[in-house]
C-alpha cells in the first residue's frame, strides 16, 4: 500500500546568483496510514519536496527529473486543473507558521467554513455547520469558540484551527511542515498527540517535515534524513535512531543534548552545510565527514539497502 511515492526527484531553482541545486534524486515512499518523517537542517530541501508534491513550487523552480506517483498516477504529468482536484481533496498541507497566517479580521469559524465551502460550493449551510463541528471534534477545538477571532486563540488553538482547515476536504494524505515549531513544549506535545490520533483512528497518512529529530522520533513509523538536497538515509524510525548508518545521521544524533542518561559532551559536526549554488560533486556531506575518502568527493554514492527497509546513500558503510 503506497499512496505516495517520490522517485529520483531533482529540482533546481534559477536565481540571479546562479542555479541552486535544491534536490538531487530524492526518494520517498509514504504508505497508506503511516506516519513518515523527513528530517534535515534549514535549506536541505525538505520543504521543496512537499511543495513539489503539491504542485506549488515557486515559479523559478525547475523539475529536472523524477516522478511523483499518487495511486500509480504521476502528478508531474498533470495540468494545473487536474492538480487542483487533487490538492486539498487528496493531499492537504499544514504550512510552516500557518497559525500566524489566519486572517485577523475574520472569526476563526468563518475561516474554517470558507475552507469547507471553497471545495464544495453546493454544500448547504446546515451541512457545512455540521462539518465544522466534526472538524472541531477531530482536532480538539471547542465549537463554542468558533465565534472568536484569531487573536483570542492561543498558539496551540490556532495551530489546531489550521489543521482543521487542512482536513476540511477529507484528504487521505496530510503534509505537516514544522507543525510544532514556535509552540511551547507542552502545547507541542498535545498537537503531536492529536495528529497521531488522527493518523491511527482515521487512517490518515501523514508526512511530517521537521528540523527537530525528536519530533520525528515521537511521531513517525519511518523516517528519512536529508542533507543539502540529498536523501542520505531512510528506514524504520527505531532502526535509524538506534543504528544510524550514515555519518551525517550519526553526527546529528551526537549533537543533541539529552534529558535522559548520563550528561556527556556534545560532539558537533564540524563546519557548515555547503552552498547549493556549488555543492560538492559526489557526496554532499563529504567535506564535513569523518569517513571522507576515495570516491566520496567525485561520485554520487550508491543507494543501498543495508538492512530490511533501511537504506543509506554512502560510499563508506561497511556491513
Amino acid at each position, binding site marked *: 500500500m503506497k499512496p505516495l511515492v517520490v522517485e529520483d526527484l531533482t529540482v533546481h531553482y534559477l536565481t540571479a546568483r546562479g542555479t541552486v541545486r535544491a534536490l538531487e534524486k530524492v526518494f520517498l515512499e509514504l504508505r497508506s496510514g503511516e506516519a513518515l518523517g523527513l528530517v534535515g*537542517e*534549514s535549506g536541505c530541501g525538505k520543504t521543496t519536496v512537499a511543495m513539489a508534491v503539491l504542485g506549488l513550487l515557486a515559479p523559478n523552480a525547475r523539475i529536472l527529473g523524477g516522478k511523483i506517483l499518487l495511486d500509480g498516477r504521476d502528478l508531474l504529468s498533470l495540468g494545473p486543473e487536474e492538480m487542483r482536484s487533487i490538492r486539498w481533496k487528496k493531499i492537504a498541507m499544514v504550512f510552516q507558521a500557518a497559525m500566524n497566517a489566519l486572517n485577523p479580521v475574520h472569526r476563526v469559524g468563518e475561516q474554517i467554513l470558507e475552507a469547507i465551502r471553497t471545495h464544495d460550493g453546493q454544500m448547504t449551510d446546515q451541512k457545512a455547520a455540521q462539518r465544522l463541528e466534526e472538524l*472541531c471534534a477531530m*482536532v*480538539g*477545538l*471547542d465549537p463554542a*469558540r468558533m465565534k472568536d477571532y484569531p487573536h483570542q*486563540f*492561543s*498558539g*496551540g*488553538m490556532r495551530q489546531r484551527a489550521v489543521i482543521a482547515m487542512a482536513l476540511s476536504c477529507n484528504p487521505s494524505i496530510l503534509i505537516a511542515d514544522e507543525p510544532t515549531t514556535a509552540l*511551547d*513544549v*507542552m*502545547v*507541542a*506535545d*498535545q498537537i*503531536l*498527540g*492529536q495528529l*497521531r*490520533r488522527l493518523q*491511527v*483512528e482515521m487512517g490518515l497518512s501523514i508526512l511530517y517535515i521537521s*528540523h*527537530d*529529530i*525528536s*519530533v520525528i*522520533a*515521537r*511521531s513517525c513509523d519511518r523516517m528519512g534524513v536529508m542533507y543539502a538536497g540529498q536523501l542520505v538515509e531512510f528506514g524504520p*524510525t*527505531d532502526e535509524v*535512531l538506534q543504528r544510524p548508518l550514515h555519518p551525517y545521521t550519526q*553526527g*546529528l*544524533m*551526537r*549533537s*543533541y*543534548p*539529552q*534529558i*535522559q*542518561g548520563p*550528561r556527556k*559532551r*556534545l*560532539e*558537533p*559536526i*564540524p563546519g*557548515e*552545510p555547503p552552498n547549493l549554488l556549488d555543492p560538492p560533486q559526489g557526496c554532499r556531506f563529504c567535506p564535513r565527514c569523518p569517513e571522507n575518502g576515495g570516491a566520496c568527493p567525485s561520485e554520487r554514492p550508491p543507494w543501498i539497502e543495508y538492512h530490511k527497509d533501511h537504506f543509506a546513500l554512502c560510499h563508506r558503510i561497511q556491513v
Partner: protein
Amino acid sequence: MNSPGSQSLVIFSEVTKLYRRRQSLLRRAGVDVKALDRVSFQIQPGEIFSLVGESGSGKTTCGRLLVRLEEPTSGQVIFDGKEVSSLKSGRIREFRRRVQMIFQDPYQSLNPQLTVFQTVVEPLLVQRYGSHKHREERVEQMLEEVGLRPAQDFLFRYPHQLSGGQRQRVAIARAMILEPTFVVADEPVSMLDASIQAQLLNMLLDLKERHNLTLLFITHDLATARYLSDRICVIFKGRVLELGPAESVIQNPRHPYTQALLKAVPTVNRRKEALPPPACPVDLLAAPSKGGCPFYARCPDCSGRCQEQEAPLQEVEQGHYSACFLHYG
C-alpha cells in the same frame, strides 16, 4: 534561601515587574500584567545558571532587568553588591563593560549596515580602549576565539553574507570583547540548526572556562539547560516554581509543573507511546489564578488550598527548592 548572599554575584530579591497594558487604542488606562512576581534567586560567581520557562513565563524579563534594559517595579536586582537600577552615571560605564547580553535572533541583533569589524569594535570605541592598532588586533583575536578563522576573511563582511551560526558567533565576539564578568545569554542557539547549536554550546562552555565567566542562560529547552548549567531555575507565569542543581532538577523534579514539562519533552531515544488520552479542548494559556499556584488549573496533584494560597519555596533536599504544598504534607 540559597547559599550565603555575600558571595553572590547577582541577587534577585523579591523582584516584581508590572507592564501596563492598554486595553484598547482609545482607552489609555489599562490593566497591569505581572511579568515577574516576587522572584528571588542568587547567582554565584563562576556558575552557569539557567532560567527555564515557556513563552510568557518572564524569563526574558529577568535578563532585561539584569542588564538594565528595564527597571523593577519593586524589589532589588543587585550585581556585585550594588543595586543595578540606582547606579550613578559614573558607575554605569563600568557596569556596561562588565555585564553583556547575547540575544536570541542573530538576524535582528546585528546592524545590517555594519561590517563584522565595525560591529565587534564598537564596544571598544565606546569604552575608549587603546589605539586603532590595538583595537584591530583585539578584534581579530576575538574573532579567532569564537571560531571565525581566519579573522581576516570575516572582518569586512556584512551580516547578510554570513550564515546564522556565523552571525551568532559575531554577536558573541561583540559581547565578549570587553572581557565581561557576567553574560546574559537569552536563547542564544534556539534559532540555529542542531549541528550548529552543538558547536555554539561547546564554545560557550569553553569561553566560560577560559574567561572565568558567570553566565545566565535563558531557555525554553530543558535538555540544553541541563547540558550547560550548574543550576536550573524553573519559572512559570512570573513565579519561581523550582530551583536546584541541574542534575537534581532533571533527574528528580519535585514540582508537578517541572514534572509535566519534562514529560512533554520529546527525546530522540523515547519510543512512541500508545495512543494519547483524548484531547481536552482546554486553553492552556487561560486558566488564570488569583493568588494561588499559577499551575493549579493543570496540576494533577492540586488540592483546595492551591487555588487560594501559593506555596513558598521550600528546600526539599540540599540546595533544591520547590514551591508546592505537596512538600508540606
